[in-house]
């Protein structure tokens, strides 16, 4: 005979834990769907419709920077210009910021007290000031304060530094390039083959067998040989020239123009992200237990070998995930371009939005682009992470 107490028999559904779980999710889902439906109904109440057909219309505005664009081109093309600009600043920014961050992070760990303190001061100042303030400072207070084009600062090259940006020499292709690029391909293939051979030999013998120097040699000597072989030059250096035209107007011809907006944005992003990367590098290097270097030294490794074979591989495992996170941040931060007039994907989208009035559609385009970039970078990070996991019990 069972004592009477809380029911032992059929369970009333409002107390059944399984029912409650399903019910909770159901309610949640209904709430979210209801919200979305309500939003959509408000939207259509204002007589707005959702369509992407506007992308084929004429843009009727001009874009001062980026790949070829005329006001008669479509909105879609305008968006493409913005995307290319964003990629330009992001890729160059990532490369430069990594270099800066690497050096600063190592400097931070230097035995030299002065060097480490200077690095520390740089990092603290940059990390405690908003990026936008730094960009404004760089753009308004530095670049725009540079001398006019007519009195531009001349750097070796020659390159001209003025308040309109930097004009620098830049290699351009000639018709002969068609004959030369197979050599580049050959160099790449040879380098890859050598790397594979090195890896196989290392798996067999424990050492690569062929020095890394040879890979470098391939990449340099083969194209060089090609250059000598083909008739003429595949590339020529477009050197800028400062010309005075009629009416006292100065102009620069030739070279590549890095606008003041681009330069300010790039320098700002590099300095800002470089400080964060420096901290990531520092944490990574410090995470390698001191005992490792001591054990290695006791075994007779040289300093160079210790860094290459023991410290770096372990440090990289700790560095790479947050490093890629910083790359993501740099890409997202590039959207601040709109504040200083650089036409990145966000800025162009804003213009598109103002002209066409298609707020929601453009908004989805913006979010979609950034999400695509973020997901790609996250995917790469996951792959790299998996390959570098230290096998643990």
């Amino acid at each position, binding site marked *: 005979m069972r004592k009477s107490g809380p029911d032992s028999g059929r369970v009333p559904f409002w107390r059944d834990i399984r029912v409650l779980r399903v019910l909770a*999710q159901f309610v949640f889902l209904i709430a979210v769907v209801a919200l979305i439906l309500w939003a959509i109904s408000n939207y259509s109440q204002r007589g707005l419709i959702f369509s992407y057909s506007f992308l084929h219309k004429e843009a009727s505005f001009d874009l001062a920077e980026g790949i070829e664009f005329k006001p008669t081109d479509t909105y879609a093309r305008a968006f493409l210009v913005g995307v290319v600009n964003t990629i330009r600043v992001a890729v160059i920014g990532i490369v430069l910021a990594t270099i800066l961050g690497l050096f600063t992070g190592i400097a931070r760990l230097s035995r030299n*007290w*002065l060097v480490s303190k200077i690095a520390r001061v740089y990092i603290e100042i940059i990390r405690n*000031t908003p990026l936008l*303030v730094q960009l404004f*400072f760089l753009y308004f207070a530095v670049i725009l304060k540079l001398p006019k084009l007519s009195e531009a600062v001349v750097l070796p090259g020659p390159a001209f530094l003025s308040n309109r940006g930097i004009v620098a020499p830049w290699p351009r292709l000639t018709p002969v390039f068609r004959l030369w690029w197979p050599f580049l391909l050959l160099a790449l293939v040879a380098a890859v083959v050598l790397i594979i051979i090195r890896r196989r030999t290392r798996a067999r013998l424990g050492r690569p067998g062929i020095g890394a120097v040879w890979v470098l040699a391939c990449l340099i000597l083969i194209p060089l040989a090609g250059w000598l072989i083909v008739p003429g030059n595949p590339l020529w250096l477009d050197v800028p020239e400062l010309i005075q035209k009629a009416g006292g107007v100065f102009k620069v011809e030739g070279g590549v123009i890095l606008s003041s907006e681009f330069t300010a944005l790039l320098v700002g992003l590099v300095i800002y992200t470089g400080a964060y990367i420096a901290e990531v590098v520092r944490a990574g290097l410090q995470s390698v237990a001191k005992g490792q270097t001591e054990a290695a030294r006791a075994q007779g490794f040289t300093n160079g070998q210790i860094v290459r074979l023991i410290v770096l591989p372990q440090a990289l495992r700790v560095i790479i995930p947050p490093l890629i996170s910083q790359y993501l941040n740099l890409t997202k931060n590039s959207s601040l371009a709109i504040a200083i007039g650089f036409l990145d994907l966000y800025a162009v989208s804003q213009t598109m939005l103002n002209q066409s009035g298609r707020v929601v559609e453009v908004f989805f385009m913006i979010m979609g682009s*950034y999400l695509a970039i973020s997901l790609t970078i996250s995917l790469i990070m996951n792959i790299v992470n998996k390959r570098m996991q230290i096998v643990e019990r």
Partner: protein
Amino acid sequence: MTDPFDMEMPPRVEIGVLGWLKNNLFSPWYNALLTVVSLAFVIFVVRAILRWAFFSARWEVVTTNLKVFMIGRYPAAEAWRVIASLAIVVVLAGLSWAFRKAKDRPIRRWLVLAWIVSFPVIGILLRGFGEDNPFMPRVSAEVWSGLLLTLVLAIVGIAASFPIGVLMALGRRSRLPVIKILCTIYIETIRGVPLISVLFMSQLMLPLFLPPHIRLATVMRALVGITLFSAAYTAENVRGGMAAVPRGQYEAAQAVGLNKALMMILIVLPQALRNVIPAIVGQFTALFKDTTLVVIVGLLELLGIGKAVTGQRQFIGLHQEVYFFVAVLFFICCFLMSYGSRRLEKALGVGER
């Protein structure tokens, strides 16, 4: 037998100040070179900055506009209300610090209540009543600017994004698939896009999705954007903290009879949050710095007001002085925040037990 007091001392150059100099700056030889180069660099930079600051910089742009920087376009006659709000915050903070070790629950309850009430009180204080009210005429939120706006955005943003972030973290860790997926989508979407686009969404799209007769002030829309953005990052931080709480804690709480809610509030969250104080304060500091982005949607917080000041006729183009001043203000605030975070960690004994 050697007399113990007859020990040989190390050479003079190895110890004391000289020793420190030698070890840290000058040995081995490439260190010495590095020191010399760095020293030259530092001297050059410091001299250039000092020379600019004392000789060519025109600091009047800052000193005459100090009030503008602080409260922006808030009418000067009503400035006392800003000061009163500040006073309320300072008094509450002081009381909280003084009673931080209080054992009695009633005092702590009153303090928490006071803090919660202070938000709407300050809101009303700053906004005031109708046009014709002689005592506190309305100062619409559109007019709040300068450091005042920065602080309002930051403080309200932090206060609002924290509970939302905690709920999102709990949702993402839930075993119920629908809730988990929805929270994950929210968090990952927000984290994958720049703050600018979230601000833009809240500016332009929020009114589109509300019935036409409701109009939100720009400040409110910006606040919604900032809060939603920061909540996603806070959620990830809290989730990390929760992952570090051992499963045994959950089991012990259940075994002793606590229901899910009590378990979370009394056992799991206190430990989870303690674990990630640096990350959470870091997120708050980032939020504080991110308030500058509202410049791009037309709100004039500290940086925006600075930009406006450089447009004043007698001060045109004095960007260097203005942005330097703004940068210094931000630096001081952020530095204080990270200092506070370290003190908080120590007070809660993180890592000790």
